[in-house]
């Protein structure tokens, strides 16, 4: 998406840290039944933890994100973290007030344990021997990190898309440890349509001969398969309207159709560019594992015996749920379904469907409404906690 360079004040320099557990036994027993040890989480923090440790906000990244939510690693980095617009001094997730934590999920490839990590049994990368992980597994690792940081109760957990699934998992799995939960542009379970797109993306990777059943770290990587997988993903993040506005049927660097299989149209060129850019930063096996985790996520089955109302009966958090009109990957009806289940449990829930033409991607794009919602909701959660009266 086009970078809006006016990001306002930044948290400045941040550092990626690592937290490892289970290197002397006591790893993580995964939902699949296997044990993962050791487990490393890459994480970053910004802001100051208050003396009573009550001002921590956990930010959960989306499918292919990382721990770098805000700020810069080096002063000459061209771009800040992925949610710098929302996280920083004076911003809605205000680092002058809150201590912000963001960690890379397990199964990922941005510093946390994943298929690219060394398998202690073989001394080589796990590859396809890495166990299938779930959103629940990711969240249980994050809980270990939060424990490690000496934080009992999080003021808020916030995230969009697959990050929003982690938010929901946190609020239901650890009801006493999340005061406020902000699931954005997300769902309590993937629709068949969402699983279908993920499956096409996975097949693109696995059909690439270089994938070699996940064992490619010594040879060439399945770049073409991964690029196609990313192209499929990108289509689901946009919308008919946003593609019409961005590309329509405009031709790329030519005045006439080529009558061959070059990228005639701008939309083809854009998808190829996004695909090729992605392979530089992402691991194909991680993509398989993370999409699988998203497909497996089913909050009502895991925590409510098939009933979403029962699942939320465990929760004590207050919620801000946000969806976007043109998001067809996780359409508004899916957010309304979770809001309904929260209401039936008497939970304190606010919901807003924001009019935005940009599809699922909207939660990452500049949006004054979203910023105002987050700011007001967090202000009240913080004010109620500090006993400073209400935020009016």
């Amino acid at each position, binding site marked *: 998406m086009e970078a809006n360079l006016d990001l306002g004040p930044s948290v400045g320099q941040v550092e990626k840290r690592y937290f490892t557990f289970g290197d002397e036994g006591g790893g993580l027993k995964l939902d699949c039944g296997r044990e993962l040890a050791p487990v490393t989480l890459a994480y970053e923090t910004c802001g100051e933890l208050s003396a009573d440790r009550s001002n921590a906000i956990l930010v959960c990244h989306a499918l292919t994100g990382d721990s770098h939510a805000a700020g810069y690693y080096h002063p000459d980095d061209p771009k800040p973290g992925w949610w710098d617009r929302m996280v920083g001094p004076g911003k809605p997730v205000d680092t002058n007030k809150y201590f912000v934590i963001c960690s890379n999920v397990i199964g990922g490839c941005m510093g946390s344990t994943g298929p690219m990590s060394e398998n202690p049994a073989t001394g080589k990368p796990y590859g396809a021997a890495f166990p299938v992980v779930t959103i629940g597994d990711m969240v249980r690792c994050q809980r270990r990190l939060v424990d490690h940081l000496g934080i009992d109760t999080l003021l808020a957990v916030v995230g969009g898309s697959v990050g929003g699934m982690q938010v929901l998992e946190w609020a239901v799995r650890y009801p006493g440890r999340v005061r406020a939960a902000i699931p954005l542009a997300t769902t309590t379970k993937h629709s068949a349509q969402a699983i279908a797109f993920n499956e096409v993306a996975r097949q693109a990777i696995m059909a690439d001969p270089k994938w070699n059943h996940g064992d490619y770290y010594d040879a060439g990587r399945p770049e073409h398969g991964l690029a196609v997988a990313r192209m499929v993903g990108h289509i689901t993040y946009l919308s008919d309207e946003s593609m019409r506005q961005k590309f329509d049927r405009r031709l790329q660097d030519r005045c006439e159709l080529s009558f061959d299989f070059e990228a005639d149209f701008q939309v083809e060129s854009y998808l190829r560019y996004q695909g090729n850019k992605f392979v530089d930063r992402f691991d194909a096996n991680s993509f398989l594992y993370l999409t699988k985790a998203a497909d497996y996520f089913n909050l009502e089955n895991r925590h409510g015996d098939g009933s979403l109302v029962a699942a939320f009966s465990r929760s004590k958090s*207050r919620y*801000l749920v946000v969806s976007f009109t043109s998001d067809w990957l996780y359409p508004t009806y899916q957010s*309304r379904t979770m*809001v*309904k289940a929260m*209401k*039936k449990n*008497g939970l*304190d*829930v*606010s*919901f*807003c*469907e*924001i*009019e935005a033409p940009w599809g699922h991607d909207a939660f990452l794009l500049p949006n004054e*409404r979203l910023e*105002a*919602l987050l*700011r*007001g*909701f967090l*202000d*009240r959660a913080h*004010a109620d906690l500090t006993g400073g009266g*209400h*935020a*009016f």
Partner: protein
Amino acid sequence: MRFDLQVIASWIEPGSKVLDLGCRTGSLLTHLTREKGIKGTGVEIDERAAGEAIAKGLTVIHGDIYEEIEDYPDDAFDYVILSRTLQQVADPTRLIREMLRVGRLGVVSFPNFTHIRNRFQMFFQGRAPISRELPYEWHNSPNIHVVPIVDFRRFCRDLSVPIVREVAISTHHHDDKGRIITFLPNLLATFGIFLLGRPQSQARRPVFA
């Protein structure tokens, strides 16, 4: 705050649970939270208004009042407020029954259609009345019902919904000032405001008067 909302606010017991249907940007809920320590929830169909209310720190659902009210369990609220919206809802009977299912008491306010100025416009000009309270032309009005105070009383009687309290007001051109009309309210009041109890057959607890 608008005078009709001041009257409504004066009826709300401190510390109660309040649902405001069609809460706009949440000025009543903000007032009640600050002054009476209520636990408030709003429903608002307009994204901008709902967004502003949430940004103030209020609990608000962006959605349609019919659909949203259905999800709340019985007795979830002490008061359910429907302010200046009755004339726009498709099925007032259904909505009022739902209000008195999720809430112990209902508060309904509406512009009094048979106010003397409206009658003059109809009688002397022969036109559909346009007033400060009902400021629309026939073709762009969101209002689908005309509600005189006397007809609303009869409507409550037909539904066996007891009227616990009733006030008719006339507001000045400054919205935040007004007075209570006791003489010929159906002719002289611009708004009717009613506190409704549960239908006798479904009352679970005694209502206070």
